[in-house]
């Protein structure tokens, strides 16, 4: 009975497939993406997933990737590694050996990306890291790892140069950092950047994760009357602190906060207190690049993202989409999906995307990207740097 049943079923399935698919036979390009979809890092993992999904949908919506006489639909194979780094490494290996993925997107952050990069190297599968900024991820001599975040100091040095050279008499800096991996690293880079420009760091304090009151620390900070207050933390820390600064009447000439003001939520939550707060991120929807990638321009990308998710993309989401767009460009340059050819194309890449200029240094980390410095002026975010995408002049004082 089974034998008489099968041909009938197959013919129906075949007809169904003919109806759905375009005339040309399509193959599937599989990209493995181990992500922390559950656990403490899940908000970040879900952001990356949104970025990848938008890219994959856009590619497939435009008929896939044509290369070497074939057309490939993109399929992203997600595996949840539960915010557990060792599992991220196992997952990356399983994606290569079991799921036979053609390429990899790295797990979240510097630590997990570094751990998984050894697997990609061993199997010679190109891996693009969308959220790893630490230089120590890239200086292992690996050939198959590429990253779309510049090193941390690229977030602090341009702003320091602008402020120090402004002639506004900014001489002293107070730094206040969340005692957490990325916020503390950025604060240390800020200290180095400030000292390099002969600014005096009058205080450098840390606060614990989960701190619900900053009055004492801010009262102390007020004693040294800093010209520039530089604070790192996540959005809830920064909203709370911004309000307590206003309560205590701390009004420096320059107030910089990383990494909350990149989100629109920060402006909504602080209202007039957001006035003239400066920040920096690897990307911001306010920048504008005419790219050679599938999204075309920053504005197109932002619109596509808003249409799909009803929200403005942030730098992590954009970086994930950019990882896909860059991989696609490299496949085009290589003229094949052969891992080694694509790896060479990535290494030789020098182009522009919606995300910014894309060129990787010899370690594989992007070195062409100029992370924008921006300032919230009258409730909207204005890019101050780099010159090419500048929307306004840096303002001093007028901190509420």
């Amino acid at each position, binding site marked *: 009975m089974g034998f008489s049943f099968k041909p009938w079923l197959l013919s129906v399935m075949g007809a169904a497939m003919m109806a759905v698919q375009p005339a040309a036979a399509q193959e599937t390009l599989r990209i493995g993406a181990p992500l922390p979809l559950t656990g403490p890092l899940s*908000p970040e993992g879900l952001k990356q997933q949104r970025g990848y999904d938008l890219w994959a949908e856009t590619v497939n919506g435009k008929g896939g990737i044509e290369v070497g006489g074939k057309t490939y639909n993109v399929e992203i194979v997600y595996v949840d590694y539960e915010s557990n780094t060792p599992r991220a490494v196992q997952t990356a290996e399983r994606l290569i050996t079991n799921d036979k993925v053609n390429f990899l997107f790295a797990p979240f952050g510097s630590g997990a990306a570094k751990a998984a990069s050894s697997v990609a190297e061993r199997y010679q599968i190109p891996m693009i890291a969308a959220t790893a900024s630490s230089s120590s991820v890239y200086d292992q001599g690996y050939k198959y790892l590429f990253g779309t975040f510049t090193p941390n100091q690229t977030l602090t040095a341009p702003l320091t140069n602008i402020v120090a050279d402004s002639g506004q008499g900014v001489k002293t800096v107070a730094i*206040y950092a969340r*005692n957490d991996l990325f916020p503390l690293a950025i604060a240390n880079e800020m200290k180095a950047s400030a000292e390099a420009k002969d600014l005096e760091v*009058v*205080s450098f*304090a*840390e*606060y*614990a994760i*989960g*701190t*619900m*009151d*900053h*009055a*004492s*620390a801010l*009262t*102390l900070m007020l*004693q*040294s009357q800093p010209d520039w207050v530089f604070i790192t933390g996540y*959005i*809830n820390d920064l*909203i*709370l602190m911004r*309000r*307590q600064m*206003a*309560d*205590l*009447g701390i009004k420096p000439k320059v107030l910089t906060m990383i990494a909350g003001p990149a989100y629109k*939520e920060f402006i*909504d*939550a*602080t*209202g007039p207190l957001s006035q003239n707060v400066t920040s920096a991120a690897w990307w911001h929807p306010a920048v504008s690049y005419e790219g050679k990638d599938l999204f075309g321009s920053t504005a197109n990308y932002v619109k596509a993202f808003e249409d799909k998710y009803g929200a403005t993309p942030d730098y992590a989401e954009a970086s994930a989409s950019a990882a896909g767009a860059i991989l696609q460009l490299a496949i085009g340059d290589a003229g094949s999906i052969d891992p080694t050819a694509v790896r060479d194309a990535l290494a030789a890449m020098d182009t522009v995307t919606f995300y910014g200029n894309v060129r990787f240094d010899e370690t594989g980390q992007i070195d062409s990207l100029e992370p924008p410095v921006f300032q919230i002026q009258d409730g909207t975010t204005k890019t101050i740097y780099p010159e090419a995408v500048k929307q306004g002049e840096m303002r001093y004082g007028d901190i509420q």
Partner: protein
Amino acid sequence: MVPAAIEPTRYSMLYAQILLNGLVLGGLYACIAVGFSLVWGVLNVINILHGSFVVLGSYIAYFAYVHLGIHPFLSVILAGGALFALGYVVQAGLINRVVGAPVLTTLVLTFGLDLILNNGMIVAFTADYRTVQLAHPLGSTVVGGLVLPLDRLVAMLLACVLTVILYFVLVRSSIGRAIVAVRMDREAAALMGVNVKRIYAITFGLGALMAGAAGSLLSLIFPISPLNGSEFLGIAFIVCVLGGLGSISGAIVGGLALGAIQSFGALLIGPQHGLTIAFVLLIILLIFKPTGIMGRRGYE
């Protein structure tokens, strides 16, 4: 950590300011903790829901302000009333069924209910941080060289007023006397004709009311998100152990002590260690005076 540049005359001002910061914070801490202490003291239930009740109170204040223009100081009544009703129903419908069981059973029940309430709030309100932005904030003023953040100060004073009202309710009203009686001896109170289950429900409702009222006041100060529930619960826990369980004065002393310890700890050892010091003191206290600063004498 005190900058060497400060001249000696300014030290006293600095310390006074730090003390003020600590006391204002401590008053708010006391208000967070007092309902938690009441429920723990009377029902012997460690109410893991308490932090989420505070957050729910904040959301009520937030939406009342955004949609109806009601100032959070006034939505204390709204949030308190709503949370009382919720607390009463939860206790009468669920917790009363297991209230005689070992403390671990009620702990697990309230833990489970907290997961439901907290995740329910994440689904309903998202985990995004919101804040109440007053159209006319009171701002801050300087009195004798001390900066007084007025909104915070008024919130703290209102918190103290609420706590005092709760105290008088327990001491003067017949319901209050019944709660105290149940707290002292459940069986004896039942023999005297007190409906113990109803008193439990009212007590849990009052605990939730205080949480909701505190949440409403805190909506002016802290960013609002379901993720803060566990922070508030942690504070309530430390304050209760520090001050002593089951008494309102204990919650006040514990709250003010925690606020002051955190503030001076931040000043003397560094802001990253403020909480560490509070916990170290907690451990010392548990070793040498396990009943807390104010002992454990009931609501008399």
